[in-house]
């Protein structure tokens, strides 16, 4: 946000406006920037997903639209979705039905506000950034229940209930895994967490100590469940519940759910990168040579690597059953996460 404010200073006489208005303008501008960025990212993540899945399955994937390897395929798809008829079932609860996709999307998108893309490139470096992410991403569950309930469709209802149970459950081990890092850093600010990992790959929390190493895997698995990716995609389990909570949605409202899913992927991968992979920090220590790669590029590369793993898992694994899902969460992940938290706490007290 600060860098955008400095950019805005270049507009003639911008500095003469009231201070609060300047901040407001800068915030608005950074929101627009991040919205556009996120949307473009999503378009290309969808394309990437289709390509990754296609190559895993011995196919080519989109090859025609736009010329080079179908790069414009998802743009065409988004345009098609925009032009489609917007159907609201006659028996649906109209208001909730309309609000649900927006709520899910806003919840996903709002979390990008605290993602530290670079040392300066962050919308706002909240001092409770991590807490904010955990809180705001769990808001999407409200939208999912609303969508499931308002559709007046039994499959959607099942999807909504499953989604609620799953996301609420997996928040807990995910939050505990996050705490293992927060204890060591002693701050909830995203930038502070990244700064604690500066100085090369061995300083990343992933490799710093065994407890944070384990916490990374706990967080990554739980984040898969939070964004409803296979093997935890039971809320929208295609072969069981048709499409789960968004069975009845079409056109742009469906696209909102779709966008939200991919923005959520970016958010959880971004949080995992920030907490465990050093965020925008460089791979090699400074004494090994000049650090040429800009921070935002570093961050994006790590996020894409994690998203690639998410896609890889999605196209390789079958889906868990709902009771097995709960078993994994409450009887495996949660105790494990607590052990890691305890170990991390001991380190924080006795090591330093």
């Amino acid at each position: 946000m600060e860098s955008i404010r400095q950019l805005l200073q270049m507009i003639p006489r911008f500095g003469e406006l009231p201070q609060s208005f300047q901040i407001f303008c800068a915030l608005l501008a950074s929101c627009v920037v991040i919205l556009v960025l996120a949307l473009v990212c999503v378009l290309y993540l969808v394309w990437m997903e289709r390509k990754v899945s296609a190559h895993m399955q011995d196919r080519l994937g989109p090859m025609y639209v736009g010329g080079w390897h179908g790069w414009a395929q998802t743009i065409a798809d988004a345009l098609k979705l925009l032009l489609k008829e917007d159907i609201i079932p006659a028996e649906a609860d109209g208001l909730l039905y309309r609000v649900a996709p927006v709520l899910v999307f806003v919840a996903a998108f709002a979390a990008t506000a605290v993602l530290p893309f670079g040392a300066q490139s962050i919308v706002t470096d909240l001092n409770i950034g991590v807490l904010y992410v955990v809180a705001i991403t769990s808001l999407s569950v409200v939208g999912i229940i609303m969508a499931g309930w308002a559709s007046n469709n039994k499959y959607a209802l099942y999807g909504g209930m499953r989604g609620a149970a799953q996301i609420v459950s997996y928040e807990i081990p995910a939050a505990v895994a996050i705490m293992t890092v927060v204890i060591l850093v002693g701050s909830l600010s995203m930038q502070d967490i990244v700064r604690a990992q500066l100085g090369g790959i061995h300083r990343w929390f992933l490799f710093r100590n065994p407890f944070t190493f384990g916490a990374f895997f706990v967080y990554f698995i739980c984040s898969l469940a939070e964004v409803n990716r296979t093997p935890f995609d039971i809320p929208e389990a295609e072969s069981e519940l048709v499409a789960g909570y968004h069975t009845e949605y079409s056109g742009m409202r469906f696209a909102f759910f779709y966008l939200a899913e991919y923005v959520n992927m970016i958010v959880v991968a971004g949080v995992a990168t920030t907490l465990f992979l050093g965020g925008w920090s460089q791979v090699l220590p400074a004494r090994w040579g000049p650090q040429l790669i800009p921070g935002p590029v570093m961050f994006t590369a790590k996020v894409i690597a994690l998203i690639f793993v998410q896609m890889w898992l999605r196209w390789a694994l079958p889906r868990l059953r709902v009771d097995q899902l709960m078993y994994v969460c409450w009887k495996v992940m949660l105790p494990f996460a607590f052990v890691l938290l305890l170990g991390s706490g001991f380190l924080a007290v006795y090591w330093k």
Partner: protein
Amino acid sequence: MEVEYSGETMTLNMGPQHPSTHGVLRLELKTDGEIVAEAVPHIGYLHRCFEKHAENVDYAGVVPFTDRMDYCAAMNNELGYVLTVEKLLGIKVNNRVRCLRVIMAELNRIASHLIAAGTYGNDMGSFTPFLHCFRDRERILDLFEETCGARLLYNYNWVGGLMFDVKPGFEDRVIEFVDYFEPLIADLNRLLSHNYIFIKRTAGVGILPPEVAISYGVTGPNLRGSGVKFDVRKDDPYLGYEEFDFDIPIGKGEFGPIGSCYDRYMVRIWEVKECLKIIRQAVKMLTPGDVQESIPKRIKPPAADVYMRTECPRGEMGYYIVSDGGLKPYRVKVKSPCFTALSALPYMARGAMIADIIAIIGSIDIVLGEIDR
């Protein structure tokens, strides 16, 4: 499994338009949350009056109709019908026809089991094995296409012979396919069959004990999955299957009680390997000859009735033909393997979860075209 129900149940209508009811099956589920108290299958959405049609065309004209019953294994369906009519007429076919029929039937069995395994992976939420299976099935369809011009509904087996002889070099291409495909079974096992989540989802689900399977009249891989070693090719051989050296795989219950979804699935995978063995032997036994030499000019059997059963990929398919001495059959009745398998579904589904229902339907591998006919 004994399950306590909290009282109020919700009726969930699954199908006929549902991604994984394998066609147009409709299930009426009485659910208590995620648990299914009762599953009632409703069939008939794909009823096309096959048996009535058969009474109105001549004997040779019935063959294309049989293709359209179990469209995943059309070669095997035709084979059962033409063998029944040949039994009625007392026709003996020459060795070339016999071997080509065996090769085609076994290739089609592989294609059918590949669909079964692939869609089963899809039902379990794993999409990749599905396309891998279809990629390999494509090679089999290419072989069929070059032989008879059709990729799904062949009309290749004729009463007394075959529609065409195979193209030159067909044997080499079959062996080439067998060599290409054999190592890929291990790939499929690594990707899907031995996946921990897949085993957890299927082993111990949809148990069909052997005695229950027999009492429901379940046949084919579903019966063998319950550990009963019964295969028409061995126990009541036709087409000279007794000359071939192959095993009958049965469910072992490796990861839970015998007769689970996993056993039924694995029986199909093992059976594919046996099919490859049979194909190799049949290609070696192939001798030159005229494939149309015993095709009768006019099929006019004596007034009699005849029953004959063959081993289709989905189980024992029986044809009962009554002839009144005319040019058209008086009655053609099909004993469908999928129908009996589906009849055991309510037994297996009791007390299962919704996701298990999908697993059970996928594991019995039904084709609605054959149930409704």
